[in-house]
């Protein structure tokens, strides 16, 4: 049978013939529903890029994360939502061992990175090594007070890449990847601090992308930006899926709805519910989730 589009092509004679009743013996073609109404998301599940297994975390004697078991699928955007103090940023920062910079923190359990099965929070794993494989973009854009070029190149220099041509190439690639190349290509040697807030944040994203991380962590990346800059970065995040796996913390639920494939709701250090975003925002399974996203906190 022909497809819907075929049926609907500007085939005047065919349509007119239908009107006048001179169709072929078969009758007009049946539109094919399967092609017309494909599901938007692939029904085949993506493999896991990382999974946290019985993860617990303490700041001193205060337990901030309780038994978190969460799978982060590869090449998908997973969003973490929840009220202030629920532990979403804490959880995010376990992935690149940022907590190690503070005294008196304790991890328990594991975050397994696939496919090598490295435990990201294990004491046997070097935090510097972890940070070289997992990138992060912070809440407020924090470019170094250097030129745009040097900002993006810094991560590469740390990895021993000092050849001028190679640096130039990879910096351009990273800036293109963050959809900001056209805006800064004539200003590579100007200070990164001279850019607007949204541009600075995208330079920070290219800085993180330059080192080709396996997972890119976003900690409320647009909370300090205006709607237009926010929209551009949200668009960028959905495009980044092809290159990296994304884990994003946001206190803006609508952003999570727009941008992510999977959403996890956390409350008081625990993981309450995780599911496909379309399910969470149309019909969540747990009442706690429903109450939070509809605004019934009281």
């Amino acid at each position: 049978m022909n497809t819907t589009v075929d049926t609907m092509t500007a085939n005047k004679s065919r349509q007119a013939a239908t009107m006048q009743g001179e169709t072929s013996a078969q009758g007009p073609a049946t539109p094919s529903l399967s092609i017309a109404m494909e599901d938007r998301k692939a029904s085949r599940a993506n493999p896991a890029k990382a999974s946290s297994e019985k993860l617990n975390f303490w700041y001193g004697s205060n337990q901030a994360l309780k038994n978190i078991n969460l799978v982060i699928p590869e090449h998908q955007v997973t969003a973490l939502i929840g009220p202030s103090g629920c532990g979403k940023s804490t959880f995010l920062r376990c992935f690149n061992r940022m907590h190690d910079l503070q005294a008196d923190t304790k991890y328990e359990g594991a975050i397994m990175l696939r496919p090598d099965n490295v435990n990201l929070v294990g004491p046997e794993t070097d935090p510097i090594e972890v940070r070289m494989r997992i990138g992060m973009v912070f809440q407020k854009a924090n470019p170094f007070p250097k030129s745009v070029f040097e900002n993006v190149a810094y991560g590469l220099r740390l990895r021993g890449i000092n050849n001028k041509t190679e640096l130039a190439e990879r910096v351009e690639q990273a800036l293109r990847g963050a959809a900001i190349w056209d805006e800064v290509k004539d200003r590579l040697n100007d200070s990164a601090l001279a850019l607007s807030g949204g541009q600075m944040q995208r330079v920070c994203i290219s800085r993180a992308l330059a080192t080709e991380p396996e997972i890119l962590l976003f900690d409320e990346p647009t909370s300090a930006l205006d709607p237009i800059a926010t929209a551009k970065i949200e668009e960028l995040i959905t495009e980044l899926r092809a290159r990296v796996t994304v884990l994003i913390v946001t206190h803006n639920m609508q952003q999570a709805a727009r941008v992510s494939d999977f959403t996890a709701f956390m409350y008081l250090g625990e993981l309450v519910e995780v599911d496909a975003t379309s399910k969470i925002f149309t019909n969540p399974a747990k009442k706690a989730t429903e109450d939070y996203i509809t605004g019934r906190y009281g």
Partner: protein
Amino acid sequence: MEADEQSTAAGVMPSKRATGAAASHGGSDPLEGHTSKTMDQSLTELRTHAVEMGGLVIDQVSSAVKALLDRDLRLAELVLSREPLVNDYESRLDRDTLTFIALQQPVATDLRATRAVARVALELERVGDESKKIARFAAKAGAASEHDPVVAVARYLRHMAGLSTTMLRSAVRALDEASPVLAHEVLALDKELDAEFATAIRQLMSFVMEDHQFLRATIDTIFALKGLERIGDHAKNIAEQVLYMVEGERPGRKSA
């Protein structure tokens, strides 16, 4: 009849939209051009599916009437077999518009467009039901005869079918192109359809007074005519949805 059909016989086809947000600021489609390609795509998909459903339903209507007029049993059964497809489209569009609202939080034109699509799907599904009823009538009608009420009003049936499918086609095109002009055309044609219906009923009444034999068939014929008139109304409703989507106000009513 042919003339009417020719003028809008370009067929119902999803208009070639400029894909990609960058192109659309100068383009003619007011519903494109979002920074978020996902939103652009999703909204376009919703409208495309509505248009596809429209094409299917138009086909159903004309096939059902043709089956009745030509006593074509096979065609009638084809229409009946495609009815679940129509319902499927409607439930899919219902679900997809809801998901779109939940995930993308459309406002203003986008929100009205989404609601228009959902309501248009409902209207089209009802049109599908009407054509199903006509097809059922066609399936059980026996061979044609002189005293057949269907034969008596055949030319009205044909004309009303033509008119209502024209209205449907224009209405769906209006949705596709977000065109208020086309929508107004549909509203205008409805009057003609209603007049045709009135004439056909009068004809049928005189037929019945002369010959009481085919009462059952006559009643069924009345329903067929009424069905076609209703299809016209549904097309009119679709056109009104398009006007609401584009202009933000329903014609003839205070703003919602």
